[in-house]
């Protein structure tokens, strides 16, 4: 009875630890390869287009509507106590520290992470990865390094874009729909927003990018036979990467807050 209980508890635990280990090993291997082997520029630029350029619309819409709705909701509350002009500060700090990085990461997971695991997974099940290896090409160099590097470059830019659009749209909503005084709005926003808020947002973006790319590539590389295998790998990649973003976000907030404390000081 007790043995069975511990077995039931232990097996998923061991599998989970093993899974984490595999992702970390893939990450370590990628970084080693990044510094010791020649980069395939063409593949890297392809991935920059895929991850960076083609995610624009998604990121702009995410940022814009989040900024709009956040601005409105904050105004509805703040207006009651005569603090309508403080909305800008709340919107900008919230977007920079939490909403921008997390929402962008979730959208990129859905758009880019899914595509990565599906593409690599399909290559795996059709023996294309074995073919790479047989042609003396190390799959990590060829498949993971360009994606990881493109992700590390793109994510901070995408997050910055999301935040900027969010702040802009939030401003428009507050000024034109809710009739907040624009000058006070801007003055408060600039006064309460610090460089450290920007740095925190971009640091998070970088970390989320790394999480998404390694979780997605790992799922692709370990996909099992057949269309079902690729489908499962893709779903698991999206779910795991999204959860990893949300969970790590809390710990990143707590850690980064020591270095870049929130609030007016």
């Amino acid at each position: 009875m007790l043995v069975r209980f511990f077995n039931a508890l232990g097996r998923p635990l061991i599998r989970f630890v093993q899974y984490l280990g595999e992702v970390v090993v893939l990450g370590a291997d990628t970084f080693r390869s990044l510094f010791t082997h020649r980069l395939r520029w063409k593949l890297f630029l392809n991935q920059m287009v895929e991850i960076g350029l083609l995610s624009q619309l998604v990121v702009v819409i995410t940022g814009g509507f989040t900024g709009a709705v956040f601005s409105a909701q904050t105004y509805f509350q703040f207006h009651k106590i005569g603090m309508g002009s403080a909305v800008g500060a709340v919107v900008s700090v919230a977007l920079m520290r939490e909403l921008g990085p997390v929402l962008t990461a979730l959208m990129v997971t859905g758009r880019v992470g899914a595509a990565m695991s599906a593409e690599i997974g399909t290559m795996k099940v059709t023996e294309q990865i074995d073919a790479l290896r047989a042609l003396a090409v190390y799959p990590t160099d060829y498949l993971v390094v360009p994606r990881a590097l493109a992700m590390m470059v793109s994510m901070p830019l995408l997050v910055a874009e999301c935040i900027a659009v969010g702040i802009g749209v939030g401003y428009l909503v507050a000024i034109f729909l809710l009739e907040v005084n624009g000058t006070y709005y801007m003055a408060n926003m600039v006064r309460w927003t610090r460089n450290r808020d920007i740095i925190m947002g971009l640091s998070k973006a970088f970390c989320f990018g790394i999480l998404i790319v390694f979780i997605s590539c790992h799922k692709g590389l370990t996909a099992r036979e057949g269309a079902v295998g690729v489908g499962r790998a893709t779903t698991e990649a999206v779910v795991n990467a999204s959860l990893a973003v949300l969970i790590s976000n809390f710990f990143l907030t707590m850690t980064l807050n020591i270095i870049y404390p929130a609030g007016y000081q």
Partner: protein
Amino acid sequence: MSAQDSRNGSMIAVQGLIKRIGQQEILRGVDLEVARGETLAIIGRSGGGKSVLLKHLIGLMKPDAGEIWIEGQNIIGMSERNLASIRQKVGILFQGAALFDSMTVAENIAFPLREAGERDPKVLRKKVSEMLEVMELSGEEEKMPVNLSGGMKKRVGLARSIIRQPSCILYDEPTSGLDPVVSDSINRLIRRLQRRFGVTSIIVTHDMKNAFDVADQIAYLHQGRIHFHGTPDQLRQSADKLLQDFLLGRSEEQLTPKGFGVES
């Protein structure tokens, strides 16, 4: 000649190869030797571990026990990166050709050269069209793999694996799923490569015509071991019941499903 000498002399030597996948023991101690320039066909029943054996020879799978020498070099325990030097010498044609589906035919064939550092588009184009000519595929450069028939895919895959002129080529079921005419053209190609480049070939197949057409030596893999290894003539004349059943395509009693009341 000592064991070590024969390993150095032969292109490929395998000793005591054991591989388990899950609970199942696929290879149970395979011993095999292939001389330089020789063509060996490995035959056996479907699911008998032939493809698994082939993938071990180029380090795509790691055995649980046993040793593999390629040109006198033991590849067991070599890291993935170090295996690259072995893989320059040994090409493989996959069962499904495994073409890169994001690239055109020409890009697929040029891929190994480009990875080896060849950048000059003129050189690449020339070598690719030479290869396509050998494969009787001239003019198909710009097609995507999805638009090719099975036989064309195999020929493109073959072109890709031999463009760097390996000294040994492994074929995984080169004629499976092809009609007899295309199969025959593949057999002809294999023989032409033998003659023209003097390569060592290992062909995994269950197509007996394919085996008899191209092989100098035939090995029969049965239940994870080499049951027979000899020339095609020796195989034809063998009185072994297992071999005769395989050659004539007779099924054994043990194939009858359990629970049909045949077995006690």
